[in-house]
């Protein structure tokens, strides 16, 4: 054996034998991230089952190899390597946190593998071996800030978990606010898993913002919103716009607590498309009436179909060919029509701002009308030129 790790690119060896093709599914099934990621595994499994029932891909049944990232980044790297080198999967669907993606990135690049990453993130990245099916910043954060400036006020309180996504997001927001006459009255970070927001709330009270821009992740949202409500701050007083709170999280936080607050996503369970109706129905049928769909779930589901479409267009499971074929592919996703941008391997998505209703669902209060072209480096925004490429 010579040259780089697994030069015998995974894709080549992976495919042709037998009448099935292996794909990897790599999410945290244990540890703190499992609360979010298990549903992504479910969504991907559902898409695979549907495709298999429909005859598979290129006549082959998809055989998922499931691995647990265990909420630990080096484990993601290890499992990704295992999927590519040992199982020789044709592609991997996986990850949630940006850290997990950053850990898998060198592994997929060095092994010439493929990764589909389904969660909104901070941008500033475009690996040739990754397809990003969640929103990048100009498909979520940037329009959300614009909308808030227009509708809610100019004084922003920025609260986020202390890691790369919120910090980068807030850099962007700061630049954008500066350019557009808004102002961040405070920028607060709390460690992952933080549970006591009383002090942050005291700070909110004393800085009197018009709106709170929330990039908290996971568990912390529950504590934050419950305690915000107890402190007597309602959505009428100071609305919160969140970018990581979806239907799944609402279930864990409690509708009464969230009612009236906003979120920015590309998809809601209530999104009105025919594809979504059957998607929600199927999901509930498969996993239980009490389950809900949400943006990352939809993005994970969509990822599998986009991969299928690219493979079929390429007529091959080989990574290079799939990548080459992917550009321009369109898919009628539950969130509307999405299109793969061949250049940066992100997808065109419609931006939607929703408000939490009494039934725990979102009501769309604004949308971008058409699918927005992904711009992970914010090259097309003047005010963003000061930010690092």
């Amino acid at each position, binding site marked *: 054996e*010579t040259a780089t790790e697994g030069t015998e690119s995974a894709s080549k060896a992976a495919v042709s034998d037998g009448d099935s093709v292996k794909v990897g599914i790599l999410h945290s099934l244990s540890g703190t991230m499992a609360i979010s990621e298990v549903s992504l595994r479910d969504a991907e499994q559902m898409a695979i089952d549907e495709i298999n029932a429909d005859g598979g891909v290129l006549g082959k049944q998809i055989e998922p190899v499931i691995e647990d990232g265990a909420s630990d980044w080096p484990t993601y790297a290890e499992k990704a390597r295992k999927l590519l080198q040992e199982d020789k999967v044709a592609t991997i669907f996986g990850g949630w946190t940006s850290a997990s993606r950053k850990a898998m*990135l060198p592994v997929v690049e060095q092994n010439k593998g493929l990764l589909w990453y389904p969660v909104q993130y901070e941008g500033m990245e475009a690996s040739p071996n990754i397809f990003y099916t969640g929103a990048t910043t100009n498909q979520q954060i940037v329009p959300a800030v614009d909308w808030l400036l227009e509708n809610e006020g100019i004084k922003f309180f920025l609260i986020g978990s*202390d*890691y*790369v996504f919120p*910090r980068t997001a807030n850099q962007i927001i700061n630049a954008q606010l500066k350019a557009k006459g808004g102002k961040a009255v405070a920028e607060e970070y709390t460690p*992952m898993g933080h549970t006591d927001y009383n002090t942050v709330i005291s700070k909110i009270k004393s800085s009197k913002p018009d709106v709170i821009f929330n990039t908290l992740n996971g568990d912390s949202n529950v504590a934050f919103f419950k305690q915000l409500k107890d402190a007597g701050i309602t959505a009428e007083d100071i609305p919160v716009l969140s970018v990581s709170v979806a239907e799944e999280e609402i279930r864990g936080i409690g509708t009464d607590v969230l009612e009236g607050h906003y979120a920015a996503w590309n998809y809601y369970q209530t999104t009105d498309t025919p594809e979504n109706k059957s998607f929600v129905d199927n999901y509930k049928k498969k996993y239980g009436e009490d389950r809900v769909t949400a943006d990352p779930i939809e993005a994970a589901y969509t990822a599998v179909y986009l991969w299928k479409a690219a493979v079929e267009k390429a007529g091959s499971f080989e990574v290079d060919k799939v990548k080459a074929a992917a550009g321009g592919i369109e898919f009628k996703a539950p969130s509307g029509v999405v299109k793969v941008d061949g250049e940066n391997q992100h997808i065109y998505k419609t931006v939607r701002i929703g408000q939490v209703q009494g039934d725990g669902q979102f009501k769309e209060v604004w949308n971008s009308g058409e699918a927005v072209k992904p711009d992970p480096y914010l090259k097309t925004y003047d005010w963003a030129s000061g930010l*690092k490429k």
Partner: protein
Amino acid sequence: MIKKYRQGAYYGIFFLFLSVAPFFLTDFRAGLLAKFLCYGIIAVGISLLWGYTGILSLGHGVFFGLGAYCMAMYLKLEASPSGIPDFMEWNGITELPFIWTMFKNPVFAIAAAVLVPSLIAAFIGYVTFKNRIKGVFFSIISQAVVVVTVTLFIGAQQITGGTSGLTNFFTVFQVPLTDSGTKTILYYVTVFTLFLIMALSFGLTKTRFGKILIAIRDGENRLRFLGYNPTGYKVFIYALSAAFAGLAGVLFVLQVGIISPEMMGIIPSVEMVLWAAIGGRFSILGAAAGAILTNSAKSYLSESYPEFWTIFLGALFLVVVLYLPNGLAGLVEKVKLRFAKKEKKEEVKHAGDSLVS
């Protein structure tokens, strides 16, 4: 005498196995084994510190992490053609911070990887042990150190890479890291390092110094009244085990290609103690083997049962700790005794025989 040979034989078998293992394993599995060997190095240090000296550190992840970060900084710089690591650029940093500049030199990086953990351990150890902080109080301090360090590394993401840590390296000394030749060399370097560390540790336990360690465990105050100042001894062994962990971090990063604050957190720190416990904390070889076996089991279980592996792993910990108080090494001892007993039958001790007469 026979006992001595037997120990030698165990070590021989162990290293023979490690030397030939790559020939029977896929690249991926050999890579995993290499990683477990790094863990073995940590476990040896824990055996010295905990098993022999009775100091339970719940914070060795920090030392491992520091070693790993030192090495990773060098690798990251080698992988940054612009001279500034990518994550710094995202954070708007335009000039390489001073502490990073020193890590352009690989010798410095490796030296730092061993020295930084041991100096920090020596410092923490000195103030803590001097103030006679013992037992759980020390363990809690070591845990607090973990929290402080991890929070610091996450908070200072402009220079540490934050939660994501450091990853995406390409070469070491200009040689591609992913070359299978490089991998093979690194594997044998790790085996050799483990060998040196185990030989050193085993040797130490056999000296008078080793007996002092046990005496500290049994009752360090008594030792004071024999004219010893236990502080120096405890600091030394704590720093030594930290150095081992740091060295393990170097080899880890070279082979695994990522280090993140998670890896120095509470969970990995407790797991490190578990490795030693499962192998047998009172045995150097046991601890090293424990690290390898525990992690093999973890990999195997998580691959076979991605949903439920934590249940099985938890059950495994439980069973080993409950039924094998001295770990696998203790089990080997027991089996040996069983055999010996068959020959000797029940011993009747003539109590009082040996007394003054």
